[in-house]
């Protein structure tokens, strides 16, 4: 048969219990003849030892971390030569076992060599296989290396030491680069049943005589129920001997995966580059797009890992980089979420503050409006017992507060003073000046000035305290309730309308002066009008005549006069005011009010004596 070498993936630490002498010892004393006959037969272990001596055989052994009944502390081996380092340096790098499970000393002595079969599992999977290991203080070859040594008839296997540990394992002219711990990554293939020869077929003589010539032969066990079943990275359950076969094959083909030291640096570099890319690219992107980008990156990463494995025989750990990059991506997306959540909260808080501020301003304006409107006399309650005249008034600010004003009060038993004014502008500034104007006009009127002189005096007072250069148009009137004599004074204001009980409408547009504050020392002329019983005097601000609709066209004095004239028949201050108000409202039709609007109407009923 002449094989190159035979490796036994079988441990034989105990004597064969079926050897004839042992069988004989178990027979009863009465079977002396049989016992003698059996004892004469050769011992099975010796037969095996003789057979081993005839062939280039390598026995398998296994490293043990714990002592058992059948383990020992050493075994016979051929020493390994170490280049570029000492035994202890080499031992410091390799997998070491304190104990070893080896075959019977008789068999060890007969065999040509011995090698270790031990393989540490990564998870449940065989990935890396050591070529050299340590038992006690001895450096031992693996079964495959020892088989190659025996087959090549070399004196010793060799180990080259490098800067990081073991760099190469050599047998004859074969040199295998290894990891620093003398392990190699096996490039696993599919198990090929054609390479198996069944022991039954061999013993039956069905195998050609030269089937094993110059071959490396492994003897091992296979089949269901085998304890020594291993899982390869390809997911295949194979007998342990298959792994030894693939290892031998790989050693010959040089088909060994390498994971050089710099691969770890390359992976770190890839991780840093990928991480930096994610940190640069992800924050401005929407999460969906960022995830898509990361997936592209991952696909590229795994493609690179596969390509280096397939075409260069290098192991690039793409999964490790993937896991780390995922953490980077996750934290980026997480912080993006936290940031957007924070911004949303800030925006909400700002909106809330704005609303609060707006509500506060609105509240203050509403209070100001109540106060302003509260300073105006209420015609419904002012003269409840008055039979000589009646008063109706209306003031609607364009905004919360306004610059229009009206007022009326009795100067004495006979004389009714009334005023309508319009401060230039609107809103808060106008409303403040309105309050000042109204108070000053009242104090001047109550001082005892008469008629138009009130306006002249008020002008001086108001102009004196006017830093914003606002001005006020105003009409004042004093009605003698006993005679119907009306003394008007006009300061840049729209002319009062006199609605005669007889049906005529007159404009009291005689002499007047400029608005208050325009010319400080202006003597406002008086304008006398004689009222007859039933006559009504109507004062408005330009909020009526210049009320705008949506097309920005003004209500106009003409339409105002027409409404006043048509209301003549009713001849009451209240109804006149109501019809003007309705007509203006209909004209404006919901447009935003452009100016404050004020109406004051006074009807003189005649010189009746007060009750």
């Amino acid at each position, binding site marked *: 048969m002449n094989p190159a070498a035979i490796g036994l993936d079988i441990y034989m630490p105990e004597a064969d219990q079926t050897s004839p002498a042992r069988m004989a010892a178990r027979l009863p004393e009465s079977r002396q003849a049989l016992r003698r006959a059996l004892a004469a037969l050769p011992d099975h272990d010796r037969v095996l030892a003789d057979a081993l001596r005839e062939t280039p055989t390598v026995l398998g052994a296994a490293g043990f971390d714990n002592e058992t009944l059948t383990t020992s502390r050493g075994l016979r081996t051929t020493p390994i030569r170490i280049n570029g380092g000492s035994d202890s340096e080499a031992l410091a790098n390799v997998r070491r076992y304190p104990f070893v499970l080896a075959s019977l000393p008789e068999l060890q002595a007969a065999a040509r060599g011995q090698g270790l079969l031990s393989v540490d599992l990564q998870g449940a999977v065989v990935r890396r296989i050591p070529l050299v290991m340590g038992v006690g203080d001895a450096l031992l070859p693996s079964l495959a290396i020892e088989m190659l040594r025996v087959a090549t008839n070399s004196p010793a296997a060799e180990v080259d030491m490098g800067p990081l540990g073991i760099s190469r394992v050599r047998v004859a002219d074969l040199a295998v680069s290894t990891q620093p711990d003398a392990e190699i990554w096996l490039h696993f293939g599919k198990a090929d049943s054609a390479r198996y020869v069944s022991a039954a077929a061999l013993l039956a003589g069905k195998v050609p005589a030269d089937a094993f010539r110059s071959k490396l032969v492994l003897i091992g066990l296979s089949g269901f129920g085998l304890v020594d079943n291993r899982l390869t990275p390809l997911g295949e359950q194979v007998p342990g001997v298959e792994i030894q076969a693939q290892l031998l094959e790989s050693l010959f083909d040089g088909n060994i995966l390498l994971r050089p030291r710099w691969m770890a640096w390359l992976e770190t570099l890839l991780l840093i580059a990928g991480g930096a890319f994610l940190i640069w690219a992800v924050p401005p992107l929407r999460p969906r797009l960022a995830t898509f980008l990361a997936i592209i990156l991952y696909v590229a990463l795994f493609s690179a890992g596969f390509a280096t494995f397939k075409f260069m025989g290098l192991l690039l750990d793409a999964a490790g980089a993937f896991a780390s990059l995922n953490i980077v991506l996750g934290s980026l997306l997480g912080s993006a979420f936290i940031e957007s959540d924070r911004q949303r909260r800030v925006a909400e808080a700002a909106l809330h503050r704005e609303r609060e501020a707006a509500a506060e301003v609105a509240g203050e304006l509403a209070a100001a409006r109540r106060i302003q409107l509260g300073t105006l006399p209420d015609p419904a309650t002012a003269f409840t017992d008055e039979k000589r005249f009646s008063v109706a008034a209306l003031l609607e600010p364009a905004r919360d507060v306004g610059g229009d004003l009206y007022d009326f009060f009795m100067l004495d038993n006979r004389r009714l003073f009334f005023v309508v004014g*319009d*401060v*230039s*502008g*609107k809103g808060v500034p106008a409303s403040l000046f309105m309050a000042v104007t109204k108070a000053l006009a009242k104090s001047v009127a109550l001082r005892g000035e008469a008629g138009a002189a009130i306006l002249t005096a008020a002008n001086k007072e108001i102009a004196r305290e006017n830093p914003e*250069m*606002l*001005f006020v*148009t105003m009409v004042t009137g004093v009605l003698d309730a006993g005679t119907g004599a009306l003394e008007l004074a*006009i*300061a*840049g*204001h*729209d*002319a009062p309308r006199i609605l005669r009980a007889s049906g005529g409408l007159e404009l009291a547009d005689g002499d*007047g*002066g*400029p*608005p208050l*504050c*325009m*010319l400080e020392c*202006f003597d406002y002329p008086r304008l006398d009008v004689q009222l007859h019983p039933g006559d009504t005097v109507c004062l408005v601000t*330009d909020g009526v005549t*210049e009320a705008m609709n949506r097309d920005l066209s*003004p209500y106009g*004095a003409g339409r105002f006069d027409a409404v006043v004239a048509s209301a003549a028949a009713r001849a009451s201050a209240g109804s006149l005011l109501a019809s003007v108000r309705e007509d203006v409202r209909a004209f404006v039709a919901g447009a935003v009010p*452009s*100016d404050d609007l004020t109406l004051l109407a006074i009807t003189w009923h005649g010189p009746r004596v007060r009750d």
Partner: protein
Amino acid sequence: MELGSRQVNAITVVAPKGRIDHAQAPLFQEAMKPHVAACTINGGPLLIDFSGVDYISSMGLRALMLIARSVTAQKGTVAIAALKPTVREVLEISRFHLVFKVYDTVDDGLIALGA
């Protein structure tokens, strides 16, 4: 607000356009500032051409009043001319003719101011 301005001999003629309402009045006032500043006892008279003004509110009148005050304080001369009927009505009601010289046309104004 844009003001077309031109010089006729010593007289500066400015022509505001559109509506001088609550919102536009401050802009009108601002645009008038350099012309008002130049209208002193030594500078030429200022004539405001109102032919392009469609509407003037009380705030517009206030702006005119302030112009009149400034110019009067500087002993300069300011006048307005060519009022549209609606604007003329507002100015008449407000008795602005007591504050400003008002001319029917720009030419009338130029002649009166001695162009």
